[in-house]
């Protein structure tokens, strides 16, 4: 399962929320339907055994509504379950804790027929009133809900029509709602349990695994829920799961995680690009990958800087970055150049950006700077006697740091002086909010193209994360059209126009999209990769050591 810098380690998913990838390599990943996979066939599975997962980031709490961490979404989902689940093949949202559901034509009313056999780990049946309480708790300001609160923002009312019938009414059509209902952040809560002291350490859910033990800084052990038999249809097993335990061992240091994998102390962990080939060629392990559900790396420009207000300068920077060389060096080739603001795994992605986007062309970059009125000095371009100098915010280590140095060298070739300023994550975001940057590296993981609202809509300047300070009415209009269109064709068209506009104006300089890799000891069978949700343990079984 599942950025740091405070951020990350797991396979996950993160639907619904934007997690800025603080961490290099972003451990929240995206997925690869084609390359992903894994042995779905469980073979001769036997009950028993323990799956040990080497986890880089410890959750803050397992009270899913109170966390914004990717790893909580992931672990929380295996404990809690969710109303819907995304079918890995069709990508459609299918019932998990419901038997059927329907959405009204205007997209405002969502009606669910709940599974009558599902119950919480504490033995209480899961009824419509529990869902009502769950949603209302997420909406209650006293809960201080993080991502869960954002996911239910458009919920107007929740009604328990009968014990097993639930009706949710929205204020406005909200395209990402189905995905929200498939996240761990909106897992059903048992009121009796959630009101107890220290619930965040003793969560109760309706999923295939139940909490057994959380030893702070050391391990979170989940045990098999013997009553579970309501898995979504796309799994081979309806439940209960085979392994007795699924243990997340918290190992922050990457070198130690890899050593623990090699020594057999852990069975599964994420592996960095340097190690992918080694584990792929080692017969003891299977390597699965997931494409990031988001944009791995891009450069944002601070449009309050006079130099960067000229689109030609932004276009020159776009043309001066050698994306292929960065991918080769930083990602060891495990990535693809990015040309637009959205990743190819998204609904609404326009493959046309691969033709219209900026390619590495230093001569064109120099010409653009000359068109913008700059003259080549001894080493760098100058205007009015001032050398074109821009700072670039980045993180202190990892892929961001490495990429920033390559970008600095690329732009030096073009004739732009880049001052790389590495910061630890909290300091970096504080600097961006205060507008101290000229340029910054950035990355995001999100479930929906509506992420552009957060990064680019003029309403998000200041308190939000429109750190580029982009204020373009034409762009605002397309963003608004995308989030409110219920008709997929209209929505896709809005995002197509938006991608074209982003390239024309060069508001960002997209760099790459990457994959995340996981090595799995073959003594664990049946773990497979969901293209958007990460590693799947429902069909898993463990061979004795």
């Amino acid at each position: 399962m599942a950025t740091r810098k405070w951020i990350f380690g797991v396979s996950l998913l993160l639907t619904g929320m934007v997690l800025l990838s603080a961490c290099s390599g972003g451990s929240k990943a995206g997925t690869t339907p084609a390359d992903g996979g894994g042995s779905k066939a469980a073979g001769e599975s036997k009950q028993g055994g323990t799956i040990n997962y080497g986890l880089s980031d410890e959750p803050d709490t397992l009270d899913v509504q109170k966390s914004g961490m990717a790893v909580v979404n992931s672990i929380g989902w295996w404990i809690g379950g969710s109303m819907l689940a995304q079918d890995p093949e069709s990508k459609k949202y299918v019932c998990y804790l419901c038997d059927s559901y329907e959405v009204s034509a205007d997209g405002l009313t969502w009606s669910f027929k709940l599974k009558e056999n599902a119950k919480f780990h504490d033995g209480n049946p899961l009824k419509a009133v529990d869902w009502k309480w769950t949603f209302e708790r997420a909406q209650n300001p006293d809960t201080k809900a993080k991502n869960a609160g954002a996911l239910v923002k458009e919920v107007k009312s929740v009604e328990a029509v009968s014990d097993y019938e639930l009706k949710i009414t929205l204020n406005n059509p909200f395209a990402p709602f189905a995905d929200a209902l498939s996240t761990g952040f909106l897992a059903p809560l048992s009121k009796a349990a959630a009101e107890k002291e220290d619930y965040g350490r003793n969560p109760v859910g309706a999923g295939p695994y139940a909490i057994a033990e959380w030893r702070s800084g050391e391990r979170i052990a989940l045990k098999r829920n013997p009553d579970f038999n309501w898995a979504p249809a796309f799994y081979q097993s309806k439940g209960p799961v085979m392994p007795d335990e699924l243990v997340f061992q918290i190992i922050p240091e990457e070198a130690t995680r890899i050593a623990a994998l090699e020594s057999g102390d852990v069975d599964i962990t994420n592996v960095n690009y340097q190690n992918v080939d080694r584990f792929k060629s080692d017969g003891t392990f299977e390597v699965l990958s997931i494409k990031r559900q988001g944009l791995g790396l891009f450069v944002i420009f601070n449009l309050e800087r006079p130099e960067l207000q000229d689109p030609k300068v932004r276009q020159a920077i776009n043309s001066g970055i050698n994306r292929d060389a960065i991918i080769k060096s930083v990602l060891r080739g495990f990535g693809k150049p990015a040309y637009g603001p959205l990743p190819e795994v998204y609904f609404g992605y326009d493959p046309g950006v691969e033709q219209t986007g900026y390619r590495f062309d230093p001569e064109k970059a120099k010409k653009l700077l000359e068109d913008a009125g700059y003259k080549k000095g001894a080493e760098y371009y100058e205007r009015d006697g001032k050398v074109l100098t821009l700072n670039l915010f980045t993180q202190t280590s990892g892929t961001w740091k490495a990429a920033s140095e390559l970008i600095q060298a690329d732009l030096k070739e073009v004739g732009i002086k880049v001052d790389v300023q590495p910061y630890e994550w909290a300091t970096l975001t504080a600097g961006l909010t205060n507008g101290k940057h000229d340029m910054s590296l950035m990355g995001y993981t999100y479930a929906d193209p509506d992420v552009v609202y957060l990064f680019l809509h003029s309403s998000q300047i200041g308190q939000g994360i429109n750190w580029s300070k982009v204020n373009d009415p034409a762009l605002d209009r397309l963003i608004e059209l995308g989030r409110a269109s219920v008709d997929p064709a209209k929505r896709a068209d809005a995002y197509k126009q938006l991608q074209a506009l982003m390239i024309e104006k060069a508001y960002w300089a997209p760099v790459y999209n990457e994959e995340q890799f996981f090595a799995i000891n073959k003594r664990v069978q049946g773990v497979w990769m969901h293209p958007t949700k990460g590693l799947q343990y429902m069909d898993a079984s463990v061979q004795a050591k």
Partner: protein
Amino acid sequence: MLTYVIKRLVAAVPTLLGVTLVIFSMVHLTPGDPVQVMLDVHASADQVARLRAELGLDRPLPEQYARFLFGALRGDLGNSLKSGRPVGAEMAERLPATLLLALAGMGIAIPLGIFLGVVAAARRDTWVDSVTMVIAMMGVSLPSFWIGILLIYVFGVQLNLLPVAGASSWKHLILPAVTLGTLASSVLARMTRSGMLEVLNSDYVRTARAKGLSGKVVLYKHALKNTLIPVVTIIGVQIGSLLGGTFIIEQLYAWPGVGRLAVGAIQARDYPMMQGIGLYVAFAYVAVNLVVDLIYGLLDPRIRYS
């Protein structure tokens, strides 16, 4: 003696007060906003303001300091901004692991370091001395991280004898304790050797030898005891810093101690947790120093406490 202890405890009060002020100032001068780190980017300006108010971060700094100070006096260090749980409870969960590792590490370091120091001094300018001191020099110079990785690779991956991460069993303690102990012993060995060399040339040692006492008795009973004061001082400093958690070793071996908790708190700008841990570390140093001063009296009866 009792009067001395009481005096020292009273004198610790202004020290700790000063420490609270320094900790509070450093925590609040660090760039980065905990509210921003806590809330995800969906948060509205409104939510940010509300959370800031709830956490009391909108209050003037002197008021926040007073709250921290009076809370601490009542034993209430506040709630972690990250997990929402009481700071005291979170620290209490991590302390046993830190104490265990510190004790185990010093349990290796003290006998090993003193023994090596004595042997090197007794065999001064022989190959034994040179080898011991080269090893001690390496222990002082090599990064603990590097030694740790090496031990993990050899004993964990290659020989598969010991677990490399976690704290589930006594076996998990061995690698971190050995890493810590070997490094700490190097400093002690060098300190003991130089102290011994000084003492071994003194008149009373010559007298002891002239009386016909055996070499061992002279070394361990007469000479060593008079070498111990600076050694005990160094041990005190080392224990003091170990009680605050050894971030690098804890991080490397995934050892669930206070050091890792502190780093997580700093990254999340978890003010109450940073303050709580800072205060605890200051307490630990003050307490260890007091104990060290009292031990001086046991080692050297000429020292009187008044």
